[in-house]
């Protein structure tokens, strides 16, 4: 795996750009551990101060320093995205591999379930869940919910790969030479699947963070814990745009856009890498 990353870093401009953006974002998140202000207090600094030497990104109408608030916000948002991506990968992998290998009625049943999840309107469902769970809708719970709704598309992808791998020669060779199913799965097939899982994970992170930001902005989330979405929510509550406190919205938006673009670039460059023709074309010097 690491060799792949090194290769990409050396040869692929998109990957480099993506990696740079993500490292900035992660650095911001890491800074949250040394923040001089606790994340949930307000009115600790003078409100509505534009960016200056002591408040690098300005302060909010609630008397919080935008920079340090942002470190917590991006940390929580990133962790959320990671959690959802992780959980949904697990489900997608399980379902996809099972369906691909077993075939037959197992495959049909799983795919029917998959299709159901595909067509259920996501947003109304989330809003409904929010109203049923209200204050018990904590971030981990939302992550579990979204993970259970976000695996469907990728499971199909993994299934088709599994099906094609099943009929490959080296699989048959493995079976004949007495490898157990587990060994075949882990040693032979996983290296093919992992890059795809990784790039879909990145896309999945984008999707879940986007959805979380949207829900938070609409007020359907815990607004006391700082996340990117809740920062924008509070800015709207205080009509920051009209009041001229543009830095309260601009910087969270900029940071989250950086996150998205970075993740996306990583995913795209990994995808291109996986397809051998484009990888070759890329490595011949003409970068995309």
């Amino acid at each position, binding site marked *: 795996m690491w060799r792949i990353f090194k290769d990409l870093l050396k040869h692929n401009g998109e990957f480099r750009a993506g990696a740079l953006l993500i490292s900035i974002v992660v650095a911001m998140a890491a800074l949250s551990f040394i923040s001089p202000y606790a994340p949930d207090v307000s009115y600790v600094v003078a409100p509505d101060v534009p960016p200056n030497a002591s408040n690098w990104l300005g302060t909010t109408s609630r008397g919080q320093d935008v920079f340090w608030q942002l470190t917590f916000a991006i940390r929580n948002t990133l962790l959320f995205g990671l959690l959802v991506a992780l959980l949904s990968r697990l489900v997608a992998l399980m379902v996809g591999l099972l369906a691909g290998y077993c075939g037959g009625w197992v495959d049909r049943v799983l795919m*029917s379930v998959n*299709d*159901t999840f*595909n*067509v*259920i*309107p*996501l*947003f*109304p*469902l989330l*809003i*409904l*869940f929010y*109203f*049923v769970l*209200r204050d018990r809708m904590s971030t981990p719970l939302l992550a579990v919910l979204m993970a259970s709704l976000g695996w469907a598309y990728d499971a199909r992808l993994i299934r088709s790969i599994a099906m094609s791998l099943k009929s490959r020669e080296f699989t048959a060779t493995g079976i004949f030479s007495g490898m157990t199913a587990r060994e075949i799965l882990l040693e032979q097939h996983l290296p093919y699947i992992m890059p795809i899982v990784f790039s879909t994970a990145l896309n999945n992170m*984008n999707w879940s*963070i*986007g959805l979380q*930001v*949207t829900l938070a*902005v*609409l007020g359907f989330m815990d607004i006391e814990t700082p996340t990117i979405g809740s920062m*924008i929510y509070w800015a709207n509550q205080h009509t920051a*745009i*009209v009041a001229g406190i543009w830095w309260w*919205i601009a910087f969270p*938006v900029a940071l*989250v*856009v950086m996150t*998205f*673009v970075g*993740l*996306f*670039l990583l995913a*795209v460059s990994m995808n291109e890498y996986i*397809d051998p*023709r*484009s990888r070759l074309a890329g490595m011949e010097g003409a970068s995309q």
Partner: protein
Amino acid sequence: MTDYLNYAMKRLGQFALVVLIGINLAYVITHATPIDPVEQSISVATYFGDTAPEAIAAMRASLQELYGLRGGALTQYVAFWGRIIRGDFGPSLSAFPTPVSTLILRAMPWTVGLLATSTIIAWVLGNLLGGLAGYYRDNRVLKVFGITAMALHPVPYYIVALILLIVFGYLWPILPISGGAAMNVAHGWNWPFISSVLSHSILPALSLILIGLGGWFLGMRSLSSNIVTDDYVVYAEIAGVRRPRILFSYVMRNALAPQLTGLAMSLGGIFNGAVITEKVFGYPGMGTLLVDAVYAADYGLVLGVTTVSIIGVSLGVLIIDLLHPLIDPRVQVR
């Protein structure tokens, strides 16, 4: 042919199953809400004035009667399915006694109009530009466009909408930022109304198109760049066929099939209503209808909108699954 019929029957069965499960799921979740529609109505009605508890109890009983909430869960469930089969979603509780179908039919043209138009425009534009970019790989304009599309695509929709709102509503107010049409313009097929609808739809449509463009662009670009290296394309180039002709008739035509699938799925997804679009731009569509209904615990309306969504999306997928083998001869029907 019988192969296909078998396949069609199976898909239809799957469709029915999915719709059934979806509606039941929505029903269960809606009725699990802690908000009591009767309580909501009472709090609205008793906004002023003193009221004795006997009076409130009387109001509660009569409202329950009115809303059809008497009887246990099972009775209500059976009654619900009885109505659905006849296509009647019942009266809306929060907008009593207006039938749910009236409310949905009022909001649907706005949602469908806006989303269908923006989806199609984004699809056409995205595929066009993507095909061009995939074929003419060295063109600088297209490369720049590619980068812009890639940068815009992952940005959450809310942020794009917000930026458009600030730019065109606040900094440079040349476009209307709220409502479906201007005030006091009679609804109908007359030019003032139509032009008003058009001008009010520019910003929401623009935000949707900007977001949707990137996806189609990137998909088409990678698809066509794959096809470009196929034998028959190389043959056509060597044979001296003009490049634009190759692009449209050879490359894009063959790349279109998966994009059509995607289009059908997007069109099906229209019925979800774009909740955020409608919130940011004040558009009177189904998304706002749904959110308001959830707030008011209006079971009938929530179920109505969700059912329409589920059926719309599943229908889109079904149609594509049925048409796909007919369009693309390479697809084997299992």
